């Protein structure tokens, strides 16, 4: 089961409102390469991992990813806090405002709601872990795009941290992939 710890994985302290950046960040909340997709992907795949290494790694990375979902949602909340309707409209967030107000809703940057169709569970550890490796690289690339779009170091700091986690997770999944290949999967 899960128990909550009342901290973020890494500090988020954004002082300057930036609605455009909030819109871009949605890609990592509810987009195809998002932290939410990562968390649910590994959480779901863990049930068909064949040994202790796979079960533990998928479980533990899924748990960490849920903490990253919280970080991204916190960034969106802090970037939009206190925004007026006019500001939301000017930043291209009028559509989002009409349905969600200043609430934080898991969609991609274009407002398309999150869907579990973004990932697969095949029951085959080689296929699943190959997808996981690709997912980590795609998320790393998206973080680099977001870092290029960002102008505030309060935003860039957490993004650099999250990007680095994609690198570590990719390396761990790659190790697990090699382990299963060696075992004949």
């Amino acid at each position, binding site marked *: 089961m899960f128990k909550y710890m009342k901290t*973020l994985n890494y500090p988020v302290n954004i002082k300057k409102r930036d609605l455009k950046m909030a819109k871009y960040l949605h890609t990592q909340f509810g987009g195809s390469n998002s932290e939410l997709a990562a968390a649910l992907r590994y959480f779901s795949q863990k049930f068909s991992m064949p040994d202790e290494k796979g079960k533990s790694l998928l479980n533990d990375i899924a748990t960490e990813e849920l903490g990253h979902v919280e970080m991204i949602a916190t960034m969106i909340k802090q970037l939009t806090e206190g925004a007026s309707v006019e500001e939301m409209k000017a930043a291209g967030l009028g559509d989002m405002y009409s349905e969600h107000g200043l609430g934080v809703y898991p969609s991609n940057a274009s407002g398309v709601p999150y869907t579990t169709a973004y990932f697969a569970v095949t029951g085959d550890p080689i296929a699943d872990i190959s997808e996981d490796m690709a997912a980590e690289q795609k998320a790393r690339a998206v973080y680099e795009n977001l*870092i290029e779009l960002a102008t505030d170091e309060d935003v*860039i700091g957490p993004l650099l941290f999250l990007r680095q986690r994609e690198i570590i997770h990719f390396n761990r999944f790659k190790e697990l992939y090699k382990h299963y290949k060696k075992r004949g999967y």
Partner: protein
Amino acid sequence: MLFENNDYDFDVLSLAGFSFSEPEQNYFGFQDDALVNSKEGFLRGNMWKNEYEPYKGMTYMPLRPTCEREALLYQIMEKDFAVNDLNLYLDLHPEDQKIYEKFKQYTKECIELKDQYAKQYGPLSLDQTSGGSYEWMKNPWPWDKSGGSMYV
């Protein structure tokens, strides 16, 4: 205390040794210097020296705790991060006794700091609930910016 000299107040460092080469995957024959310390690891988001790949020379941004409470919280997050990063490695290398010893050390430090925090400021997890009144639901929550003193 760890933060008295603004230990977290680093400027962005210039690029040093950024490499596209593959990280070493086999930690057998592990050296004591395979890991950075937990503070550096937390700031980087990566405890492993040979797996660190900064983007375009950007290493990390300064963290500036504004009060003692926040400073203590950052230390807890730092230890908790180290525990997590070593945890993922140990899932694949449970036989690595040296890393396991580091893992136990960070776990112990994290528990001690969390206990200290709970006594001074309230629980970070429900099983830390003690004292004369129910504190768990009180602000600040980790996503709060105002109304919560921006402590996370």
